[in-house]
C-alpha cells in the first residue's frame, strides 16, 4: 500500500513538472513573456523592473529556473486589473467554486445513484424509462442552456429562488461560505443543480449499467438464496459493487466540475474562479489566466491522486494486485 502510494505520488509530481515545462514553453518560448506577463499600461521603468524580476534578460534555462522558483513560492505574476498577485486572487475565489462544486457533487451522488439503481432494477417500467430519457437530455444539452431554463422557470416565472449572486455569507475558519446561511443556500441551489445536471446524468448511466450487471450475477442470486431481504440485497450487495465505478468516475469528474463551473458561474453570476477566468480573458488579464491554468492543473492532479487512493480502499481486489505489482 505504501509502495503504491509513493509510486503514485511520484507519478503525480512528474505530471506537475511536465505541466510546468509546458506552460513555461507556452508563455516564455513561444509567446512573448513581455506581452504576457507585463501590463500594457506599464511605463518604461516598471517594465524594466519587471524584466529584471522575471529575469527576461537572462538565458532561457535561467528564466525557467526563476519561473519555477517563483511558482513554488506562489508567485505567478500580478493581475493587471487588480494589481494584486494573481495566485492570491484566484485562491480568494476558490472557496466559492469549491463550495458550489461540492454541493453539486452531493446532488449528483444522492440523486444519480438511487435514480440509476431504480432504472437498473426496473429497466422497462415507466419510471425507468423516464429516468433514462431525462439522463439523455442532461447529457446532450449544453450546460448554459439548462442553467438559463432553470432561471427562467424558478426565478423568472415561479419566483421561488434568486437567479444570480452568492447571497449572504458567513465566515468559516476565516473563509466566507454561503451554505451556512438560508439566503446563501437559496442562492446556491440553482447553480448547484445546474452544475450537477451533467454529472447526475453520468452517475445515472453508471449506476444503471452497474445495477443491471450486478443483478444478473450469481452472488445476488446466492444472496437471495440465503433469504436476505430485497432491501439488504439492493442496499448492500448491489450498491457496494456499483459504488466503485461511481466513486472513481465522480472523483475524476470533480476536477472537470471545477472547469465546468466556468459556465455555471457565468450564467448565475456566481463570484468564483470560473467567472474570474472569463472576466480575465475578456480583460486580457493574462497573469490571472496563466495562474488559473497552473492552479487548475494542480487541483486536477491532486484529485486524481486522492481518487486513486480511495479506489484502493474501496475495492479489495485492486488493493491486492497493486500491492503485489
Amino acid at each position, binding site marked *: 500500500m505504501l509502495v503504491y502510494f509513493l509510486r503514485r505520488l511520484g507519478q503525480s509530481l512528474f505530471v506537475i513538472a511536465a505541466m510546468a515545462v509546458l506552460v513555461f514553453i507556452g508563455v516564455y518560448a513561444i509567446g512573448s513573456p513581455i506581452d504576457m506577463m507585463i501590463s500594457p499600461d506599464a511605463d518604461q521603468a516598471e517594465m524594466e523592473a519587471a524584466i529584471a524580476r522575471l529575469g527576461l534578460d537572462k538565458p532561457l534555462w535561467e528564466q525557467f529556473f526563476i519561473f519555477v522558483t517563483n511558482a513554488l513560492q506562489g508567485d505567478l505574476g500580478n493581475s493587471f486589473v487588480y494589481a494584486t498577485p494573481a495566485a492570491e486572487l484566484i485562491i480568494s475565489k476558490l472557496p466559492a467554486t469549491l463550495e458550489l462544486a461540492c454541493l453539486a457533487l452531493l446532488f449528483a451522488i444522492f440523486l444519480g445513484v438511487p435514480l440509476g439503481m431504480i432504472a437498473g432494477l426496473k429497466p422497462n417500467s415507466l419510471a425507468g424509462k423516464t429516468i433514462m430519457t431525462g439522463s439523455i437530455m442532461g447529457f446532450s444539452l449544453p450546460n448554459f442552456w439548462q442553467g438559463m431554463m432553470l432561471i427562467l422557470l424558478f426565478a423568472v416565472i415561479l419566483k421561488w429562488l434568486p437567479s444570480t449572486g452568492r447571497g449572504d455569507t458567513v465566515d468559516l475558519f476565516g473563509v466566507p461560505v454561503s451554505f451556512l446561511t438560508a439566503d446563501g443556500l437559496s442562492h446556491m441551489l440553482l447553480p448547484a443543480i445546474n452544475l450537477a445536471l451533467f454529472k447526475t446524468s453520468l452517475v445515472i448511466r453508471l449506476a444503471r449499467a452497474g445495477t443491471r450487471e450486478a443483478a444478473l450475477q*450469481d*452472488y445476488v442470486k446466492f444472496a437471495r438464496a440465503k433469504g436476505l431481504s430485497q432491501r*439488504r440485497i439492493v442496499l448492500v*450487495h448491489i450498491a457496494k459493487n456499483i459504488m466503485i465505478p461511481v466513486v472513481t468516475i465522480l472523483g475524476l469528474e470533480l476536477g472537470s466540475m471545477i472547469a465546468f463551473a466556468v459556465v455555471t458561474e457565468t450564467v448565475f453570476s456566481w463570484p468564483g474562479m470560473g467567472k474570474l477566468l472569463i472576466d480575465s480573458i475578456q480583460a486580457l488579464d493574462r497573469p490571472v489566466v496563466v495562474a488559473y491554468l497552473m492552479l487548475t492543473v494542480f487541483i486536477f492532479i491532486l484529485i486524481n491522486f486522492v481518487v486513486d487512493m480511495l479506489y484502493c480502499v474501496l475495492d479489495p481486489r485492486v488493493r491486492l494486485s497493486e500491492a503485489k505489482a
Partner: protein
Amino acid sequence: MSDRNGGPTISLRDLKTHFFTKEGVVKAVDGISFDVAKGEVLGLVGESGSGKSITGFSILGLVDQPGRIVDGEILFQGRDLVQLPEEERRKLRGSKIAMIFQDPMMTLNPVLRIDTQMTEAVLAHRDVSKERALEIAREALVKVGIAAPDERLNSYPHQFSGGMRQRVAIATAFLNEPELIIADEPTTALDVTIQGQILFEAQNLCRETGTALIWITHDLAVVAGLADQICVMYAGKIVEQGTVDRVLDQPAHPYTAGLIGSVPGRNQRGSRLFQIPGMTPSLLNLPYGCAFRSRCPHADVACEEEPPERPTADGRLVRCIRPLAGEPQGGEAA
C-alpha cells in the same frame, strides 16, 4: 409441523415451471414429481437445459421473469410453497432450505468480507447478536474443514481458491441447519481431488444432521457414489426415477442407458465411446410424443404418442413405451 418426522421433507407434485418468452412458451419444467426423505440424497441428473436447475430454483422460489410456476405443488414438510406469500418464502430460504451454486467464483460477493456474507445469513433468520452470529459462522467453517477460520472470516473472496470458496458457500448453506439443501452442480467447476473432498464433506454433514439433499448434476459418477435415489431429467420431464443401484445397473429408459454408455470407463479402453446421437432439442419446439424420439435407437411409430410415466415391477418409474429393463407393473407393455 406435525408430520415433521413422518412424511418426506420435500415432495414435488406435478410441478410445471414455464418461461413466457417473446419466441414462445418454454416448458423448462413440465410436470415432475419426486419425494426426498429426511437424510436422503436425491441425484437429479440431466444434460444442460434439461430443467434440473430450474427445478432447484422453483423449490427456492427464485424463478425470475419471464418464468413462473404455472401448476403443481411443492410440499415442504407438508406446506405447499407455491401458495406461500413471498415474505414467508424468503424466511424459508437460507434457513430451512438452502442452496449451493455451481460456480464458486461467482457466488460470493467480491466486495464484501466473508464474515459479512456469512453473518448476514444468520442475522436474516435468527434473533442473535452479531458476536453470536460470528461464532456460528466460525463453527460452520471449521465443520467444512477450513483451517484458521478467524483469519478466513476477515478475508475477501478473491483471496481464496475455488475449492475454498465452495467450502465457504457450503458452510454458509449449513449455517442455519436447514432441512433441505439443493446443490446445483457444486463440484463441476472444481479439480477432481477437491471434488472428492467436497462430496465427502457434504455427504457427512447430511448424514449427521438428517438434512435432505438434492444434488443436481450431469455427472453420473458423482451420483453413483453419493445418492440414494436418482431422477433422470430430459426436456423438462423425469424420464426415469428409482434407486441408484437399480437405475445405474439396469437402466430402463434408453436415455439413461445412453448417459451411462457415454461415461468413459476402464473396461472400455480402446473402444469408441458411445455418444447419444443428435442434440438436446430446443424446448421451444419439442417434437410431439416422446421428446427423446429423434435421438432414440429404439424409437418407432408408437413413440409418436406421449409416453405415460409408469411404475415397473422393481419399484421404478419410467417414461417410455419400450423400457429396456424392468417389467412394467401389471405387464401391460406392448
